[in-house]
């Protein structure tokens, strides 16, 4: 191993350690790590820029702009109240409905955005029914990570996979992950409904009050709503057709975002750009450069070589290993840097003799996305919901969450193991 490779590993491990400890903001650390790779001469600036995946960044930015403007219309509150009324204000059924809504939202929006939209509505509904919001919040955390697994645009690991591997199109994700994700969602929600059923009781009077709500009044700007729905529809249709049209998913998302800005005019421009999470965008940039140091110095190839030796190059054991290692790792560390490291490694495995990489990609996606449900620090959505709940006086502790979520995550990965084996490996 060359000196440069050893330095690259050192920079990578120190950066990773700081990301895990969360003492300094992850964006600062990732950018500092990426810059160190360039400053120490591990990788040149031109090559570093070449490794930044602008498709991932464009897709995230485009969707953030669309959601920022659409959330101004009151649409999300309208949908939540409409759903609560559809199930007659019954708390247990509302838990199921909000869980499904969160999963559907997360399938098309980023998970953090979805929970940021769902949590205020959840507090509003549970307050009116005078029921404990914690079962709803835990269900929404799990549903957001499961729903995000189901599409190319649902969760950052999938966005990165779709961007890095040409064959993994929007439709490929729908065909391979949507059904299994929603099956896992229903299993999870059913178990949560059984666990929480006794806490979810309210009076007939409070249910009647919820049923009397006028959800149409929640729509604050009808003209903006129409424009948002037009842009959102075009964007979603674009995702379904992007392979057919030979355009990248980032082009679809950015076209949708700027179509919406064209329709709304510049009064929403500043507001929309203010709501783009630039810290997340720069976190990705830092990571891409950081991992590029490992790629260019041959470290990733060595790791791939070692993994292939470990499994004897057998696609079945390699897939199962990737699924479980991704899940356990993602329960404790950020799945974005993990996937950023795994993508080039799996590509290298292809060059080392594993010809059928498809089960490996789906194993990585399922493991990395669903693994985030294992602990309270497993995914950004978990941390955000717990933080919001704590601020309002409702504590979701690490232990309390672990007790419920970890077994559910293990069960989900067990279901995935059977799915991967039956669908791709026999």
């Amino acid at each position, binding site marked *: 191993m060359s000196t440069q490779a050893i330095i690259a590993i050192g920079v990578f491990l120190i950066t990773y350690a700081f990301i895990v400890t969360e003492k300094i903001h992850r964006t600062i650390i990732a950018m500092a790590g990426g810059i160190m790779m360039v400053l120490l001469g591990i990788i040149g600036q031109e090559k570093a820029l070449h490794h930044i995946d602008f498709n991932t960044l464009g897709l995230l930015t485009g969707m953030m702009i669309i959601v920022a403007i659409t959330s101004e219309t009151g649409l999300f509150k309208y949908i939540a109240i409409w759903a609560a009324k559809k199930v007659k204000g019954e708390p247990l059924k509302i838990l199921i409905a909000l869980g499904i809504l969160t999963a559907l939202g997360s399938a098309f929006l980023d998970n953090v955005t979805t929970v940021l939209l769902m949590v205020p509505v959840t*507090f509003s509904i549970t307050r009116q029914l005078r029921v404990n919001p914690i079962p709803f919040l835990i269900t929404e955390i799990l549903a957001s990570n499961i729903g995000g697994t189901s599409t190319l645009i649902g969760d950052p690991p999938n966005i990165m996979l779709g961007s890095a591997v040409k064959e993994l199109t929007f439709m490929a994700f729908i065909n391979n992950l949507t059904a299994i994700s929603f099956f896992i969602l229903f299993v999870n929600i059913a178990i949560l409904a059984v666990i929480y059923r006794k806490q979810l009781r309210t009076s007939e009077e409070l249910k009647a*009050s919820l049923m*009397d*709500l006028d959800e149409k009044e929640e729509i604050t700007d009808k003209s903006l709503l129409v424009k948002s729905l037009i842009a959102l529809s075009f964007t979603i249709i674009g995702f379904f057709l992007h392979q057919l049209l030979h355009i990248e998913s980032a082009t679809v998302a950015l076209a949708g975002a700027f179509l919406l800005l064209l329709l709304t005019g510049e009064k929403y421009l500043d507001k929309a750009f203010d709501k783009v999470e630039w810290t997340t965008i720069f976190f990705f940039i830092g990571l891409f450069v950081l991992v590029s140091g490992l790629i260019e110095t041959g470290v990733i190839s060595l790791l791939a070589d070692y993994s292939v030796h470990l499994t004897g190059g057998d696609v079945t054991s390699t897939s199962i290993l990737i699924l479980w290692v991704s899940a356990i790792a993602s329960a404790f560390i950020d799945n974005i840097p993990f996937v950023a490291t795994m993508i080039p490694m799996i590509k290298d495995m292809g060059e080392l003799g594993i010809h059928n990489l498809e089960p490996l990609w789906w194993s990585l996606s399922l493991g990395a996305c669903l693994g985030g449900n294992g602990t309270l620090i497993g995914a950004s959505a978990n941390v955000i919901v717990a933080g919001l709940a704590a*601020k309002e006086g409702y504590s979701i502790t690490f232990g309390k969450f672990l007790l419920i979520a970890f077994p559910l995550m293990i069960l989900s990965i067990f279901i995935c193991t059977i799915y991967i084996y039956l669908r791709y490996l026999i």
Partner: protein
Amino acid sequence: MKVKYKYDEKIIELKETANGNDIEFSIKLIDSELKKNLRQVRDYFEENKILTDIQFYIHPNKQYQVIARSDFYNEFIIQLFRQQLLKEIVWG
């Protein structure tokens, strides 16, 4: 110290009931023009980062239900006054 208030019964009807740590208001706007004033009050509380301070529920016929956390009671009353939904406020 709680704020006491008076309102014009020709434009608004307001009832409050204590409910544990919350105070629940039932508001009926007689003058439809005041809808946007009440919306301003709602926007004020939705723009801060506290989710459970004041919650608004819209019922048909310009009827509103508001659940206020007791520590935000005064602020809510002050905002109603600021938007001219109350005639008078005094420290009680």
